[in-house]
């Protein structure tokens, strides 16, 4: 009998992590202790490549998006420290090279390839531009614990949130102008808190002990806990936003 699907309790593995093992950043960034499998020059025109997917000068497309992780697709090293303007610039460059509309007068095969590649690029951009999602993704690549497996948050965090929840419920009950103002400032507070956690996460990634180092699992757990707190805060922020918009 056919039945509705269930979500697996424990995701088996991380597909990107498995595929991205050999890839890493290139161009302008040379992260220590990594083997770069990403080509640095276009095989056709020999110009330097900003990303391994498309050549910015001769517009040649390299259909290998599946082989790279999100960072590599954008020609970036695996790091939390991404300059947003630079990321956006790279995104626009990739889109100019890969969006199906740019292949309008080419054959069907090219167009289909462009559909696939730009979907990968869009996916990568949505992950990389958001610091929280970027951190989750990076943790996955580094083989850290996933949220479904490890639900802990930093000590004292949940107790503190009890009070915040109460405030939100109270405001929901009587949403007058002063309550709205209060919620807007609470939301700003929540964002600040989240940013602070993300800063800690970024720092932890920057000094992440190498594979095999006994201290590594502890650091990954610390990152996990902070990201769990961020997810919780994001949930509250969305609740407040919905409340204020309606």
């Amino acid at each position, binding site marked *: 009998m*056919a039945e*509705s*699907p269930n979500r697996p309790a424990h995701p*088996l593995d991380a597909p990107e992590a498995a595929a991205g093992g050999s890839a890493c950043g290139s161009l302008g960034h040379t992260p220590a202790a990594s083997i770069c499998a990403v080509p640095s020059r276009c095989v056709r025109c020999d110009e330097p490549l900003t990303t391994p997917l498309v050549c910015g000068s001769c517009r040649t497309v390299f259909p290998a998006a599946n082989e790279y992780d999100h960072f590599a697709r954008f020609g970036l090293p695996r790091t939390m420290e991404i300059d947003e303007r630079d990321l956006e610039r790279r995104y626009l460059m990739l889109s100019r090279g890969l*969006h199906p509309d740019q292949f309008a007068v080419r054959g069907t095969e090219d167009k289909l390839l462009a559909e696939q590649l730009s979907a990968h690029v869009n*996916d990568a951009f949505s992950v990389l531009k958001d610091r929280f999602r970027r951190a989750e993704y990076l943790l996955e690549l580094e083989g850290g614990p996933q949220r479904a497996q490890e639900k802990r948050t930093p000590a004292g965090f949940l107790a503190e949130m009890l009070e915040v929840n109460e405030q939100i419920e109270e405001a929901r009950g009587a949403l007058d102008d002063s309550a709205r103002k209060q919620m807007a400032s609470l939301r700003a507070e929540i964002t600040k808190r989240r940013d602070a956690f993300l800063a800690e996460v970024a720092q932890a990634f920057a000094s992440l002990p190498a594979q095999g180092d006994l201290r590594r699992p502890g650091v990954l757990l610390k990152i996990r806990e902070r990201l769990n707190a961020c997810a919780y805060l994001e949930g509250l922020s969305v609740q407040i936003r919905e409340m204020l*918009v309606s």
Partner: protein
Amino acid sequence: MAAPVLGIDLGTTNSLAALVGADGKPAALRGLDGEAIVPSVVSFAEGGAVVVGRAARRRAADDPMHTVFSVKRLMGKGIEDLTEVERSHCPYEFVPADGSQLRLKIRGREYTPQEISAQILREVVNRASAVVGETVTRVVITVPAYFDESQKQATMAAGQIAGLQVLRILNEPTAASLAYGLDGLHDGVVVVYDLGGGTFDVSVLKIESGVFRVLATNGDAALGGDDFDRAIAERCAQEMRAAGVPETALRDPGLLQVLRAAAERAKMELSEKLETELVISEDRLGVRWRRTLARAEFESIVAPLIERTVGPCRRALSDAELEPEQVHAVVLVGGATYVPAVRARVEQLFGRKPYCELNPMEVVALGAAVQAKKLEGGFQNLLLLDVTPLSLGTETYGGAVAKVIPRNTAIPARASEQFTTFTDNQTAIVFHICQGERELAKDCRSLGKLILRGIPGMPAGMPRVDVTFHIDSDGLLTVTAQERRSGVKAKVEIVPKHGLSLDEITRLVQEAAAHAKEDFVAARLATLRADAEFVLRKLDARVADAAGRLDAETLSEIQTARDGVVDAMAGQSPDGIDGALHYLEDVARPLVEMTMNTVAQRAVSGKLLDEVTQSAERTKAAAPAHDGSGPLSVKRG
């Protein structure tokens, strides 16, 4: 060289086409009659002929049961999707009453909204082909950004039924931003506020050196200027009831059409003036009623409708993570944005004066033309990056929705989720694909089901099924499912519950092609007959009006020409009717001039405002969606 790719705005109340000219600028295509706009009205005359556009609109009052307005509101819908109001305002019969794509029963035949839209598309394309001098076959068609999957699919199907190759389904606000971008709008964050005849969209875009990137979109796929008309008509009907107009008359489909048309006219007039008059005169029913309507009262009637656009605007900004102060420009699109109260609300909301340099009625078609040119290989430096407006996901055990692609994800998009079985030895999984923002599947739009069969027997939770959603650059969805251990696969291009299957579309395309020629002659004949009826009715009223002031010779000449038209109408030759009408028009010119002057004088002295002066006035004013039917204007078929 192949015929150019045409950009088409397939609107709720009006449709039109545009092309990029030799100067690199898009322009609306005017038909041989000088009109760019084709009213989105289809009328089914006796004998099976189909009349589209202005002529169909003229038939509305006389033949309301066989004249279809606003078919766009029915696209991709089941009967259960229609609101009570929508249902009560459609005089025709719907079939079936169950959950599949609804059909209209007209003169004993069933039509899907897709087929009726195809008639409109055909008319638009034929008019364009006549101007271009080549047969247009490739098009870009715009849709409201907030259309769901089944509505977008239905639009694609309408194009196919019309025998067209639809190169792109393009979101209307995005199209409008392209037109403005080409018109010199500066780089920055732009909000497009698009209130059309039947749909509302708001999109937030970032324009940066030729790349138009949509950051967020929101809207209401069932809110537009039509609703303004309805609100006025409803108010009038209530008052007429109170004034003693019998219920049977108030339910008369012909009267409802007259009321709707009068309400629309009043709305447009109030964009220019502070007061207007509604005159409802139906001798057939013994109804004579009039009232003045002040702009302030009109605004209080439609205020709740305008307010409904505010939430989507806030949500779009919030999704784009922007504050109103960060917006550089607000652009107005759609006929309903002529309403001053709408403009004032938008200005208040964003704290800046909105742009409306380009004609809000044409700007979507202009943008479609730009994208059409791009898909021909032009405008290499221009690029549109759009998003999917609504979240997509699949129902999980227990009825919740697991979101696979969240709203405002850039397209093309691709995302996977893993699922597993719920019971031991479960050999098949049903994936119920849903679209919408609600948590439970039953509250979202059901798009269809994908069944993965042949999973080898395993304990519950063991199989690993990857479900992958791919949205292409038209915004259309494909879903695939694969079990990893066994490699069993299933793939569907989602055929929405309310959509047409590929077989149905193929059949309709063939049917349409088989009848193309006879349909064409019959349609032209029916259009010209409808025109002739209209002209004769106007003529007779004028002759009565001018009684005694016209010399006998002219009068007899007119009478002869009139007889000629009546004879030609009884015949089967479209050219015969056309010729007779031309002759009548020539002969009747002195009469027309005489009555126009009289009417104009009366209007000035404030005694009467009849249809003639109204349309004459509106021709000079930049008013929206006017009928354009001057005193004796006849569409030359």
